[in-house]
């Protein structure tokens, strides 16, 4: 019996089950909807510089409408929560988690396997769809992809980590993550002052505003939203990700799941 082999088996098993789960169908609709919106926006009004008379204005519109409003605030958290909460929460709700907990794999390694299975799937989906949207948007999109990719990547990892923490902590983690994403992130993220720094999106948006500043991108209300530096925001997202993973491992390795039988 080999622990490494058992771990790899669990990663592969979890990845396969996630890929063919209802979550894939669930995220397909918003991803497709976003693509249709983008196509309509491009061919009706155009993200080309000529349509606005200025490429900087077009870049600003694309960044505000697609990147900040649709992608970062909605598409990305939906993709992350669809898989991250299902990865361990689905097993918990279906009560199949029991079959994993009675195998000779340390508990922290069980949840780490789930996390490792989820991460490439979500990062691949988010970065891949972002790449497609940017290509669909034309030259401004291509420029935006190069600038915003680090922010998108760090935010995605932070969300995956955070939603795994939700999944090991709460029974109905998908609903809690959904409420968190759609209300807490937006509500608190829109508040003035430093309270918004408890949200993941603040740091991601800070990176985006900083990276887009040279191309004329500014927060809609600079008095309310004072972005951090790219470096500082990136470090904060990395810290959130690491803390989320460590807390997830710690909670899962100690916690009893009495609802499994």
């Amino acid at each position, binding site marked *: 019996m080999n622990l*490494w*082999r058992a771990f790899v*088996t669990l990663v592969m098993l979890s990845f396969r089950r996630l890929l063919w789960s209802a979550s894939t169908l669930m995220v397909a609709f918003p991803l497709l909807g976003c693509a249709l919106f983008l196509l309509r926006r491009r061919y009706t009004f155009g993200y080309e510089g000529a349509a606005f008379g200025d490429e900087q204005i077009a870049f600003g519109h694309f960044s505000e409408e697609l990147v900040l409003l649709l992608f970062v605030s909605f598409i990305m958290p939906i993709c992350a929560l669809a898989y991250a909460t299902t990865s361990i929460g689905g097993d918990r709700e279906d009560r199949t988690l029991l079959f994993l*907990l009675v195998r000779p794999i340390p508990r922290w390694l069980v949840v780490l396997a789930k996390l490792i299975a989820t991460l490439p799937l979500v990062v691949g989906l988010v970065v891949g769809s972002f790449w497609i949207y940017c290509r669909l948007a034309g030259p401004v999109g291509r420029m935006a992809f190069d600038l915003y990719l680090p922010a998108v990547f760090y935010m995605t990892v932070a969300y995956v980590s955070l939603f795994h923490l939700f999944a090991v902590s709460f029974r109905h983690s998908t609903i809690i993550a959904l409420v968190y994403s759609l209300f807490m992130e937006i509500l608190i993220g829109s508040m003035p002052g430093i309270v918004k720094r408890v949200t993941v999106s603040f740091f991601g948006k800070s990176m985006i505003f900083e990276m887009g500043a040279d191309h004329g991108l500014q927060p809609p209300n600079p008095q309310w939203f004072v972005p951090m530096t790219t470096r500082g925001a990136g470090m904060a997202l990395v810290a959130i990700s690491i803390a989320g993973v460590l807390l997830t491992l710690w909670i899962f390795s100690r916690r009893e799941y009495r609802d499994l039988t």
Partner: protein
Amino acid sequence: MLLSFDHVTKLYGPVVGVNDMSCRIGPGITGLLGANGAGKSTMMKLASGQLRVTSGSVTLGEHDAWSSAAKRCFGFSPDINSFYEEMTGREFVYAMTRLYGYTAREARERSEQALVDVGMIDRADRHIAGCSHGMRQRIKLAQALVNDPPILLLDEPMNGIDPGGRRDIGELLIAQASKGKTILVSSHILVEVEHLADSILMIARGRIVASGTLSDVRNLIDDQPFTVQLVVEPSRRMASLLLAFDEVNSVEVRGDTLTVRTRKPAQFFARVGELVMRDAIVVHKMVSLDTGADAVFGYLEQGAP
């Protein structure tokens, strides 16, 4: 390998799941009996490392039940009906076998053997979603056997299985026990384990109320009424003679049939022998009505603290 509970208490908030329970379960088949809510599932969950004790300790051999090392020592068939429904029985058992860290080839051999053992090999390619309850029980049992563990923890393994299947699984468990394995089988249908188990543990309200063989347990109940039916001639005379004895609680007469309730069966049977010899009473038939596990359990549960 020994499965030991040493002064184990498990609290669910203010609710007591198991209360200061101590026992050692060794090789052979041990039936774990108790009504719903008695603490059977808590005991199974503690033994399989799903729950941690509030106080005391649960060990499998040398290992604490919560540790991952202990999980190499047992196979667990849970009392749930949840699976990876999209898989076939074969895929599920194979996947569970791989999670022990076996190579693909070894896992394939072990999972196939387990499917043969539980009588599912010919139906293993059916999707679990389309399997009957009995087939699902067999799949659960198969995944518990794949690592050839020294301890088997089986939570209601006969539930939903037809009589033929019960016989097959009974034979399988007896064969496993003959290899020196420790097998703990929980059930609330007492007759299931009555004929299977070498010893029984009866629990009620989180405590062990009796342990040993079924007859040992029955002998523990000297203050509980024991019912015997006699077909005798003359019945009325016999009834009046019996009522004179202190150990007889009541006698009910219906034609030649007497239904006698006694608190001291051993003395009662001795008295009957004396009467037959002394008063020329003819006994056509004498049968005890409640030697089954149900009656024993009923008595014990009433007496539980």
